[in-house]
């Protein structure tokens, strides 16, 4: 079931005017920011479908940038997000795409600074709820509603079991898990949604495992 909590329906508390095109858009931006781990210096934002056609009226552009600035859906600073980003020197580019995507409310966000880049595709499925469908070229399904850990690893046997064993040791329950790879035997990504927030100490321990390259977390 896509929707698990009653507060997906009665909620979120948010700045208008659209739960999918404003609140959902802000959440997509904020997940990108959270995964990037710091404020980006630039952002290229491609909008598809209904997002591309109506973003000015709905404030979708403002909201995504608000998310990149780490503002929550009910943060009134969202209204002035583009001005705030400009003041901080963040370079913004919006692209209205014509391509037809699986979901009408789709955004592709590429953000970066001199230390790195991150590319993320998010969809806004209604009522402010979002899913991340692509991260740095990996396909995945991340609701953004639960704490989650993302593990970039080499596609080798035992890598998944190693991670699962450490989570089990700390009594962390896995709600949803997915593994995605670009090519057999090469780089792969584990997406693990868990029920409780995870301590940084556990992330460090995960990163020490063989074949594990990078571990990041998204806080609830």
């Amino acid at each position, binding site marked *: 079931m896509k929707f698990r*909590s*009653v507060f997906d329906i*009665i909620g979120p508390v948010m700045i208008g*005017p*659209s739960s999918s095109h404003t609140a959902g858009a802000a959440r997509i931006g904020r997940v990108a920011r959270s995964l990037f781990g710091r404020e980006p210096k630039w952002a290229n934002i491609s909008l598809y479908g209904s997002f591309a056609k*109506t973003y000015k*009226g*709905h404030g979708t552009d403002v909201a995504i940038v608000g998310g990149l600035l780490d503002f929550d859906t*009910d943060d009134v600073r969202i209204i002035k997000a583009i001005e705030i980003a400009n003041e901080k020197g963040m370079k913004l580019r919006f692209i209205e795409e014509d391509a037809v995507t699986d979901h009408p409310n789709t955004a592709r966000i590429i953000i970066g600074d001199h230390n790195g880049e991150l590319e993320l595709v998010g969809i806004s499925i209604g009522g402010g709820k979002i899913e991340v469908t692509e991260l740095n070229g990996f396909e995945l399904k991340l609701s953004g509603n639960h704490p989650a850990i993302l593990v970039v690893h080499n596609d080798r046997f035992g890598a998944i079991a190693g991670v699962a064993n450490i989570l089990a040791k700390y009594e962390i329950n896995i709600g949803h898990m997915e593994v995605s790879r670009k090519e057999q035997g090469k780089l792969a990504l584990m997406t693990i949604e868990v029920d409780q927030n995870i301590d940084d100490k556990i992330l460090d321990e995960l990163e020490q495992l063989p074949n594990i390259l990078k571990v990041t977390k998204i806080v609830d």
Partner: protein
Amino acid sequence: MFRNAAELVEMANSQNKKISEIMIEQEVTVTGRSREEVMSFMDRNLKVMEEAVERGIKGVKSHSGLTGGDAVLLQKYIEKGNFLTGETILDAVSKAVATNEVNAAMGTICATPTAGSAGVVPGTLFAVQKKLNPTREQMISFLFTAGAFGFIVANNASISGAAGGCQAEVGSAAGMAAAAIVELAGGTPQQCAEAMAITLKNMLGLVCDPVAGLVEVPCVKRNAMGAANAMVAADMALAGITSRIPCDEVIDAMYKIGQSMPSALKETAQGGLAATPTGRALEAKIFGIPLNKK
């Protein structure tokens, strides 16, 4: 976990509980939060709804200038006492409009189930509040009952205008409100489902065609009529009228209608009222150039 309206009603009946109670218990189980936390979280959402209505009935104006001030007009009209329908229904309409006018003005609201349809549930709640004098806890329960039916629609169909048209947004909101009014007025769980079905049946096919892509025209007035629809359907269900097509099948029909709707009528501002001469003229005026660069 209930998956559809039939299961929800069956759970309520077999456990001799209200639908709101089933929803609260499920939320506690699914999220691991305590009952107190869940209730106080909903109380916070209720406060946001109250503040939005208070702000809206004093009068707001959107940035585009397309909407605002209608809630005030209706409140003044009610005060004069010469209305043709009823005070409760007009109060619901006025408060639904108030909420959506605040939303259009980029104010703070609580999505129920979406921002574009955020007026219906609070509008009807605060209107029946005068008549039924509920406790704070009963008002919070109203939102859980509405949430339970929205939960079913969201998981079996859609609550997104871009995916299913306005029927998925204001249609769902009106159905949720109707079911919640019935419970608050003392109706049975089955009557809640009948009210949801009757309401949604009368919103099937409603397209999402916002002028200039703004959540203003016709969204604010669709919330008005969604609230009126919910009030009448609730009264019908409480009178003992049932829907020949069961609630779950109405929801399924809504989903399929949404899928076959052309994308021009699903929140793209390409068809319907958005594509009328006046709609296009407003769009051109607001953005300097029309969004549709044909």
